[in-house]
């Protein structure tokens, strides 16, 4: 029975749920929870906020799934719920993080496993990557969203457009702008670093 359940695709699970098979939703949750949680974490920048977004998104999904007319569009539909929930959450939180606090927040925002390392350890362990992570965190929310969905979730431009309720052109534009902003940020950081090295020298 379990094997049968796992063999079903998303659309079949949606249909089964709509016919009253509650287990089908649990199956969908198991399939999407990891990616959803990690994406929520990347969007909110905080583990506990991510859990709240995850919970809110899945509850909305559960309550509205019976009315989904195109079960084959479940993936885009779900990511749209998650994305908009995260946006609403971030907007409500309305917390602009100063750059000086980013590394503190980075350490505090990780789950227990992550918190065993200090911010300093993270910095020295992989400075280049840490800088880039910080730069992504600094992006405006909608730019950060397309970056997360495109590079982390490996969604196509069209899928991101469906998930965010934007036109494909808008998604491409945000991707381009986000990449440019990251490049500029990294160049500035690199220039600062070189300048400091030269001064020390």
């Amino acid at each position: 029975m379990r094997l049968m359940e796992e063999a079903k695709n998303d659309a079949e699970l949606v249909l089964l749920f709509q016919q009253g098979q509650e287990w089908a939703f649990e199956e969908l949750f198991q399939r999407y929870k990891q990616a959803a949680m990690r994406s929520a974490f990347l969007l909110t920048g905080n583990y506990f906020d991510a859990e709240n977004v995850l919970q809110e998104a899945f509850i909305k999904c559960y309550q509205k799934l019976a009315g989904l007319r195109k079960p084959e569009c479940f993936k885009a539909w779900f990511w749209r719920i998650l994305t908009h929930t995260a946006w609403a959450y971030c907007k409500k939180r309305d917390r602009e993080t100063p750059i000086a606090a980013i590394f503190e927040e980075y350490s505090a925002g990780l789950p227990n496993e992550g918190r065993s390392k200090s911010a300093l350890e993270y910095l020295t362990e992989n400075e280049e990557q840490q800088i880039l992570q910080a730069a992504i965190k600094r992006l405006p929310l909608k730019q950060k969203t397309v970056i997360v969905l495109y590079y982390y979730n490996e969604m196509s431009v069209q899928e991101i457009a469906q998930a965010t309720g934007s036109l494909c052109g808008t998604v491409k534009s945000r991707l381009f702008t986000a990449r440019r902003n990251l490049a500029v940020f990294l160049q500035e950081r690199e220039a600062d670093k070189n300048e400091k090295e030269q001064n020390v020298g």
Partner: protein
Amino acid sequence: MKRSKTLADESLEREIKAALQAEAAAVEVSAEAEAALFAELAKSRADRSWAAKMPLSWNWPVRRFLLSFCLIFCLSCAGVFATQVGSGGGWVSGGPNYEVNSFDKMPKLLDRLSFEPRYLQSFANGYSFAEAHVFGAQGLDEQGRRMSHVYLELSVAYCNPTSGENLTLNVNNIPNGFGGQALQTRQVGNVELKYEEQAYKFVPFDYVLTDADWAALADGSLVISIGTDTVENNLLQSVVWVQDGVKYHMFGFDLSLSGDELLDMAAEIAAIEL
């Protein structure tokens, strides 16, 4: 490594991907969060079972039908609301819903049933046929999943033309627990009729249970049912019996009838020879 070398587009894209993967790698959904989510879903399911099926402005026949459904399955136990929230088990309406409002059309409804029910057009005290439904019901397992089999139940509404009071007779062959503590009994042949009373509280969808509600639910002295515009406290009067493997539940709220009078009416039905 010079940063300038990594700023080429391809390299930047690889780095972005790696940075995101590294940052999110340690993030998992905690067991507590998962448990909290499913607790919320269980609550949502309890609401959905009722709220999703009701139009915003539902008239009395629909309401009576839903309340009848609630009662037949929840008599003598903690009620649909508490059952759903507490154990995840219970019953939900589902499948077909057929209705007739003329006694002559009853055979059409009866064709759909897998059992033969006893019923009357009118009682000696003046109560007479008003309308009837056949509707489906599905059991929920402990995880709240609908079981595959849909049972059909007959619900016949009677009205007293003088007082306007309503009384309902539900008949089914659903294999669930049935009957509570009898206040009075009466024997009709080899069938024992049981008269019972139960306090009911009907509440709006957004009603928040009080501590007193929870305590009353726990000791079984109260059943809470969701679906009214205002909070209403009612006394349910019932006569229940099992005859030829079929379950009968005749009931009404805040009736002017005594237990004896309700038992008289039930005895009229039980005495019918099939």
